[in-house]
C-alpha cells in the first residue's frame, strides 16, 4: 500500500489527472484482502473478479475522456445487511445463509452510479444487533489497531476493512450508533445522516424508525463524498426526504467562528475512560482554538435514552424479523410435521442468541397487557427526548460529546454481559431517537495506540454543518493506519 493514495480525494485526483490507472489501484487492495482478511474477518464476501472487470470498464471510460462520477475507482465495502442483487446478503445471520437478493439497494445503486467499486460485503453483528461484531454468525471481526480487540459494531467489518487498508470507504448502517462506535474504535469518520436523508430501500431492517444507511471513511471530506453520492429522496422509501444542496466541506475552509458547540457536561462524569476524557478535552480545546465557542448544556441522563431505545428498537425488530420463517427464502428446517414446527425449528436454528433475546424482548413489550407499560411509554419518552434536544439546540448550533465511554475493548470482554454491551451506545442513540444527524471522528490515540473518538450531533438538516466542522478539525488528514 505504500505510496498508494490513502483517501478518496487523493485517489480520484490521481485518476483524473492520469497519474494512476485503475487496475493498478484495485490490485493492491485485492492483494491486501488476500493477506489480511482471514485475520481481520472484515469481509464476508469478496468480489475480486467483479472488482477487476469493473475497474477495467471504468478505465475504458476514463480513457475515452469520460468522468463517471466523484467516486470513480474508489474501492468501497458494503455492510452485508444491504442488498446487492445476485450476491450473497446474509445480514450476518445463518437464517440468510445462501440468500441472494433479486434487487439492489438504492444507496448502492447510487454509489455505483458515482463510479465506486464495491469490493466486498462487510461483516456485522447479526441483523446489526450488537456493538462488537462478535454476534456475527460468520465469526468476529478484529480491530486492525490491536487484533486482540473488537472493531466495534455492528458495522465492525466496514471499520476493520477501512482501518485495515482493504477499502477506502464503506456503507454501514446506524440504528443506535452502529457506524459511529466502530468509527471511534478504528479511527474513522462516520456520518449517521438525519433520518430520511438516505433511502433505506434495500437495507435489511432492524429498527425501521431508527435505521439509516451511513457512510464511513477516513476523513470528513471523503465521508461527505460518499454521503453526497447516496443522499436524497427515493420513491421506494416513503420516509426518505429531499434535503436541499449536497454537502460542500470546502465551503468550510474558514475558521468556524461564532459556531456554538454544546457540551453535555454531566455526561462526562462517571464511567468515562480517562483516555477518552483526555482525548475529548483536547478535541474541545482544538475546536476553541479554531474559533468555536463551547457552551455547557444540560441534556437528560443518557441512561433513559438507552432504555427507551431498547424498547422501541426491539419492538420494531420483533416484527421486522418475523419474515424469516423458512417459507419463501433462506434455509428451511427439514422433516417437520406442521407449519408451526417449521417456524420454530427454522427460526430456532437460524437466529443467534442475541437476536433471539431481542425478538423476545420486542414481542414482550408489544404484548397485550404490557404494551401500555413499555412500548407506549417508550414512545412518549422518545417525544420528550426530542423536545429536550430541540430546546438545547435553541442555544447552540450542535452538540459535541464523546462517541463511546471507552476505547476498543478486548474480544470476549463483554460477551457475557448484555447490559454492559448495550451501554457502549449510551452517547450515540440520542441521534437515532431524535432523528438528528451525527458525525463521529477521530481525535487521536491513547498511549496504547488505540484510536479515540468524539462526535458532533444535530441539528436537523445539519449534515453540511457537522461534516464542515469535522473537515476544519481534520484538515483533510486521516489518522495514520496501523502497521501490519
Amino acid at each position, binding site marked *: 500500500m505504500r505510496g498508494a493514495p490513502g483517501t478518496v480525494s487523493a485517489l480520484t485526483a490521481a485518476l483524473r489527472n492520469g497519474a494512476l490507472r485503475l487496475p493498478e489501484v484495485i490490485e493492491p487492495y485485492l492483494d491486501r484482502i488476500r493477506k489480511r482478511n482471514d485475520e481481520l474477518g472484515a469481509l464476508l464476501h469478496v468480489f475480486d473478479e467483479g472488482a477487476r472487470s469493473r475497474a477495467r470498464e471504468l478505465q475504458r471510460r476514463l480513457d475515452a475522456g469520460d468522468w463517471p462520477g466523484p467516486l470513480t475507482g474508489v474501492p468501497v465495502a458494503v455492510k452485508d445487511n444491504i442488498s446487492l442483487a445476485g450476491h450473497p446478503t446474509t445480514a450476518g445471520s445463518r437464517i440468510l445463509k445462501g440468500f441472494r437478493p433479486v434487487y439492489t439497494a438504492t444507496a448502492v445503486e447510487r454509489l455505483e452510479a458515482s463510479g465506486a467499486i464495491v469490493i466486498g460485503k462487510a461483516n456485522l453483528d447479526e441483523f446489526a444487533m450488537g456493538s462488537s461484531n462478535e454476534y456475527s454468525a460468520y465469526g468476529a471481526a478484529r480491530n486492525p489497531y490491536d487484533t486482540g480487540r473488537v472493531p466495534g459494531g455492528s458495522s465492525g467489518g466496514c471499520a476493520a476493512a477501512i482501518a485495515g487498508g482493504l477499502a477506502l470507504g464503506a456503507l454501514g448502517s446506524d440504528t443506535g450508533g452502529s457506524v459511529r462506535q466502530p468509527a471511534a474504535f478504528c479511527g474513522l469518520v462516520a456520518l449517521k445522516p438525519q433520518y430520511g436523508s438516505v433511502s433505506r430501500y434495500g437495507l435489511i431492517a432492524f429498527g425501521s424508525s431508527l435505521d439509516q444507511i451511513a457512510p464511513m471513511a477516513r476523513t470528513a471530506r471523503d465521508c461527505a463524498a460518499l454521503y453526497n453520492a447516496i443522499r436524497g429522496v427515493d420513491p421506494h422509501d416513503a420516509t426518505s426526504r429531499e434535503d436541499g444542496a449536497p454537502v460542500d466541506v470546502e465551503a468550510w475552509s474558514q475558521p468556524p467562528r461564532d459556531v456554538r458547540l454544546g457540551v453535555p457536561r454531566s455526561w462526562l462524569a462517571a464511567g468515562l475512560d480517562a483516555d477518552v476524557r483526555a482525548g475529548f478535552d483536547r478535541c474541545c480545546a482544538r475546536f476553541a482554538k479554531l474559533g468555536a465557542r463551547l457552551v455547557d448544556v444540560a441534556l437528560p441522563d443518557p441512561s433513559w435514552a438507552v432504555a427507551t431505545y431498547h424498547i422501541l428498537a426491539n419492538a420494531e425488530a420483533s416484527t421486522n424479523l418475523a419474515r424469516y420463517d423458512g417459507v419463501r427464502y433462506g434455509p428451511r428446517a427439514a422433516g417437520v410435521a406442521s407449519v408451526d414446527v417449521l417456524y420454530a425449528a427454522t427460526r430456532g436454528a437460524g437466529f443467534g442468541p442475541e437476536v433471539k433475546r431481542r425478538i423476545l424482548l420486542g414481542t414482550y413489550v408489544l*404484548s397485550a397487557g404490557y404494551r401500555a407499560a413499555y412500548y407506549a411509554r417508550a414512545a412518549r419518552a422518545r417525544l420528550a427526548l426530542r423536545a429536550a434536544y430541540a430546546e438545547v439546540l435553541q442555544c447552540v448550533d450542535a452538540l459535541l460529546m464523546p462517541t463511546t465511554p471507552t476505547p476498543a475493548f478486548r474480544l470476549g470482554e463483554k460477551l457475557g454481559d448484555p447490559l454492559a454491551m448495550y451501554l457502549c451506545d449510551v452517547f450515540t442513540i440520542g441521534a437515532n431517537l431524535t432523528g438528528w444527524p451525527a458525525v463521529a471522528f477521530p481525535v487521536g490515540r491513547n498511549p496504547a495506540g488505540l484510536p479515540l473518538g468524539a462526535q458532533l450531533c444535530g441539528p436537523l438538516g445539519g449534515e453540511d454543518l457537522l461534516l464542515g466542522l469535522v473537515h476544519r478539525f481534520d484538515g483533510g488528514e486521516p489518522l495514520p493506519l496501523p502497521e501490519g
Partner: protein
Amino acid sequence: MTYEAVIGLEVHAQLKTATKMFCACPAAFEAPPNSCVCPVCLGHPGALPVANRRAAELAVRLGLAVGATVRAHSSWARKSYFYPDLPKGYQITQYAEPIVTGGALEIETTEGSRSIRLVRMHLEEDAGRSQHPERSGERTTRVDFNRCGTPLLEIVSVPDLRTPGEARAYLVRLKQILQYCAVSDADMEKGGLRCDVNISVRPAGEERLGTPAELKNLNSFRHVERALAAEITRQVARLRRGETVSRETRRWDPAGGRTHAMRDKEAEHDYRYFPEPDLPPLILDPDWIAAIERSLPEMPDRRRARLVTQYGIRPYDARLLTATRELADYFEAVAARAPDAQIAANLVGSELLGLLHEHKLEVTACPIRPQALADLAGLRAKGTLSSKLIKQVLAEMLASGEAPEAIIRSRGWVQVEDDTQLRAWVIALLETHPQEVADYRKGKTAVLEFLMGQLMKRSQGRAHPEIARALLEELLGAKP
C-alpha cells in the same frame, strides 16, 4: 320469553385499483400463480412499502357516498401473526387512526327503510392464498402471492342490525353503493367482498348486549343469512336452557347448516398492533377531498327519485332500474330516445333484463344499442307489435344485431288485423277443439283464455289480440 338478535358486520371489499396497496405490481386476480409479485409484496429483506394514493381515493369516495367523515390525517399500523400466506409476518393496516369514520347505510326492510350506522372504514393489504392439494398421497401447502398486498377496505358497521334478512339487505345495499361509486367490483363469489359477522342475542327489551360470537367463512349473501339464522337458534336455545354463550369465533358449515367453534389457537391472537414505522401518516388535502366529492356519481336513492319525476315511470320500475349504475345509465339512454318512457322502462327492466339473464350477459356487454331499443319501444307504443312479438324481436335483435323494423319486415312479423285471415284461423281452431267449444257454450267461459292462447300459437303471435278475441267470442257465441 322472546329474544332479539344484535348483529354487526365487518366487510372487506377489494378496491378497484390497477396496482397493489404498497407496490407497483398489478392487482390482477386471474394471472398464473405468483406472476404478479415483487420484493415488496413478497416481504423480501430490505423492501419497503409505499402507499397507493388511488386506494386512499377510493376509500374517500365510499366514505363521502355514505355521509361519513373523511379524516385528513390517518395512520398505518402493523398487525402481527404468522401464516405462510402472510410474507412479512405482519399485515399493514390502519388501526388507531382509520381514514374514514361514521356514516350510515339506508336499507329496505319489511317494516320500511332503516338507517344502519357505520363505525369506520380502514385501508389494509390482503394476504396471499394458500391451497392444500394432495401430492403423491401427501398433504402439501401451495401459496399464491398474486393477491398478497392487494388493497382492501374494511367497512365496520355498528351492531344496528336485528335479523338475518336485515344483514342481507345491508350487504345488498353496500354492494350496490360500492359498485355505483366504482370503488369495488364487490363480487362475493370471487372473494371481492368478504364478510365477518358479530352476533349476540338478548331478551327482547333488554338494553345490555349479550356475549357475541364471531362468524367466519361467509362467502355469499345466502350463507350470511343462513348462518345467522342457525347461530341465533343456537344461542337462543342455550339461553333457554339456562346456559351461557361464550365469546368465540365460529365457522359456518354450509353443508351441515350449522356453526362450529374454531380451535382456540386459530381464533385467539394477540396481534401486537403498533404504528408502522415504514409509512408516514396519510395526509389528505381538503381540496383533494372536495374534488373527489364533486366527482361522485348520483347515488341510487336520489337517482331513483329523479327517474320517477323526470320520466314519470312507476317507482317499482325506478327501483329496479337503479339497481346498478350501468343499468340506470342504459335505461336513461333508451328513455331519452323513446316516445314513451314507461314502455322503455318495461322493455329494459323486464324484457331485456330477462333476456340478458338467460344469456348470462351483463348490461355493459349488451350488444343492443339504446337507439334500437328506443325504436322497438316506439313500435310497441304504436300498437303494431304484441308482447309476444316484442319478445321475439328482442331475441332476434340480441342474436343478429339487426334493427327491429328490419327484423319485422324480413320475418313477416307484422301484426295481423285482416278479418279474413283472422276468421280463417279462428274457424280452423274451433274445428279442432269441439270439446272446449261445447264447454264454453255450457257456460264455462274460462276456456276462452285457453283458446286465445292456442290462437296466438297458431298465428305465431301475429294475431292482433283485441280483434282476435272479439272474433273468437263472436264465433263461439254463434250456434253451429
